[in-house]
């Protein structure tokens, strides 16, 4: 795997390979010594243009557990007028000997530009670009769903037949987009629920069903309900009138939690707005996978770094780019 930029380009085979390697990585986390020497001598740079302690720490933990060296590079200001350009930043990292660059950027497409520009030879992992993609989040979400439903038999399993409903600000969500593609590739059926203002104007080409009514979606009995964080700034741009109305209509409150099938799980990428899109009861219930998602995130990111860095570097495009 040369780069991991999005999930739309991941084949079923490549996606399953990542998830299965993540199983092995997860297993090592129960040992006495939780570290593996596999990426010793490799340098992973966390290039974060957007603040994100959680994702950055997750990648850092993943890299360190594989004995790689980690450099954290926090770059403020990505436009030419404000600070150093992406090109200059990238080439500085190259000169420092980065083997992999994990990039989070506010501009959709920035990781793609970085990977295809010829500025660097390192592998690029997209840790979230604008509203476009967040592939490792989708992978850890799929891993979590798989683990909850298939347990120790997860290895090799896809998600065929499972129904996943994603609720929230789809328009601005890279998590939603990456999940739509990956879940579909793995055979799941995806439904999106949002106020009409927060669904992109034309999703006719997406392999999803779109509903505006959360209660209707829950009545269908989804196996997994994924709640997306709602950014309160969206209120001032008139996407919805008030927090109260949003929470009443699209929030996972106690009544909706109780209406879910007994075995259904609730996911949330974090950080949560307790009381807004998800009630405290839902967040803390046994159905909630929030903490497992965090743990699984490290395993999945270990798998991604392993597959990116531990083979001979192959120039040709292959599964998963």
């Amino acid at each position, binding site marked *: 795997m040369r780069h991991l930029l999005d999930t*739309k380009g991941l084949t079923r085979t490549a996606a399953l390979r990542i998830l299965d390697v993540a199983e092995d990585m997860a297993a090592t986390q129960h040992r006495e010594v939780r570290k593996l020497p596999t990426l010793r001598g490799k340098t992973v740079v966390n290039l974060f243009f957007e603040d994100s302690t959680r994702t950055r720490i997750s990648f850092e933990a993943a890299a360190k557990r594989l004995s790689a060296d980690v450099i954290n590079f926090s770059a403020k200001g*990505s*436009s*030419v007028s404000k600070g150093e*350009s*992406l*090109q200059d930043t990238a080439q500085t990292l190259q000169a420092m000997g980065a083997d992999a660059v994990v990039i989070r*950027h*506010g*501009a*959709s*497409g*920035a990781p*793609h*530009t970085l990977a*295809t*520009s010829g500025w660097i030879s390192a592998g690029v992992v997209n840790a979230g*670009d*604008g*509203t*476009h*993609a967040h592939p490792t989040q989708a992978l850890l979400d799929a891993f979590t769903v798989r683990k909850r439903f298939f347990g120790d038999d997860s290895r090799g399993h896809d998600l065929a037949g499972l129904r996943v409903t994603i609720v929230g600000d789809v328009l601005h969500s*890279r998590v939603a*987009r990456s999940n739509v593609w990956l879940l579909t590739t793995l055979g799941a059926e995806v439904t999106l629920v949002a106020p009409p203002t927060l669904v*992109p*104007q*034309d*999703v*006719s*080409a*997406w392999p999803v069903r779109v509903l505006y009514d959360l209660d209707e979606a829950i009545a269908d009995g989804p196996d997994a309900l994924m709640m997306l964080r709602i950014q309160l700034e969206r209120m001032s741009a008139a996407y919805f009138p008030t927090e109260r109305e949003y929470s009443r209509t699209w929030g996972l409150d106690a009544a909706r939690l109780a209406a879910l099938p007994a075995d259904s799980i609730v996911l949330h990428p974090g950080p949560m707005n307790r009381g807004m899109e998800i009630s405290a009861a839902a967040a803390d219930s046994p159905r909630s996978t929030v903490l497992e998602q965090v743990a699984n995130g490290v395993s999945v990111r270990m798998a991604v770094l392993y597959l990116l860095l531990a083979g001979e570097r192959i120039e040709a495009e292959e599964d998963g780019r």
Partner: protein
Amino acid sequence: MSESFLIRGARPSGGAATDIVIADGRIVETGTALSAAGATVVDADGLIALPGLVDLHTHLREPGYEASETILTGSRAAAAGGFTTVFAMPNTSPVADTAGVVEQELALGEAAGFAHVQPIGAVTIGQNGERLAELGAMASSRARVRVFSDDGFCVFDPLIMRRALEYVKSFDGVVAQHAQDPRLTEGAQMNEGTVSAELGLAGWPAVAEESIIARDVLLAEHVGSRLHVCHLSTAGSVDIIRWAKKRGVDVTAEVTPHHLLLTEELVRGYDARFKVNPPLRRDEDVLAVREGLADGTIDIVATDHAPHPAEAKSCEWAAAANGMVGLESALRVVQQAVVDTGMLTWDDVARVMSAAPARIGRLSGAGTPLAAGRPASLTLYDPRPVRRFTDADLHGRSVNSPYLDRELPGEVRWTFFGGVVTMAEGAVLSAPGVRA
């Protein structure tokens, strides 16, 4: 005594082979088997002769942004594209909103000598959309400004737009509107539709262009003014102009070469060479603007030549500037998009790229037919070759072209500006009239 020329066997507007004699800046004679003592012979066998092209929408960046382009480099690029007149948009620094700045631009264009540089004046001071600029002063200056535009920005306040439309009537001016509702396009990066939904780029909906055009044609009708609409890009916009013309509104419209050829699919891959305002649209829109140009709904082709330095394009999409250079490629793209597809003849090309823009811009000495007594501003174009467009084809200061490494037909071979050679045998001259 300037050089005189005998052009042999050119095909005016694609017609029969004709000889053209040029002397003292004028076309002296056209016919067959002509001779002219002492004239330099130009073998134009197979070449199409067009009146010097007139671009109603160019960004020459001087004063203020000389790193991207200057009036000299921009007019050389124009000559390389077969243009002998370019209308320079006012989004310079300082903005061209006073007689002083427009006269300076005119003087720089005259000093360069590659083409007539006709300044466009801003509609509002600083292009801020709040107060009218001194349109009258610019009109009566040496630059004789007739076209006014806040291009780059929309004249959004309907009251200001109404006043501007009314005011320019006194000197037969025209307001050229950049139709873009700013509230519907805040932070917009590309056309709003299925591609933007997938790529996670904020959308620029077609309705933001169409709603402004609809408003402006009604305003123009109400106050009895001329209106010009810049860079039309959507099927809906074409429909509105068609409706307005049928109603008798005095409106003209332009389309860029890139909107005649390229679509939003090119944005996949986030290559900022394809980032432009208005954005590249869908197949249906490209088809509609081609048809609009063919049936006269759209009056002219204008390049919207927009040079940008490398660092403004070689970066992540959101940070990149909007715009493409287009003077050198315009005729070739038009050939590929509408001539080779049988929608326009070369005669139509002469109209939409020379006569009509000159008329809209009220420039009487430009866009004139190739006939005896007329100014000797013309271009000789070979439609036959098919070559890759490379940066060797670019002659301005910037290289942000969406056609690099793309195969395009045709080649501009000669450009004459008032009888002076600016392009000879496919190579633009370093100074007008001076050949190695």
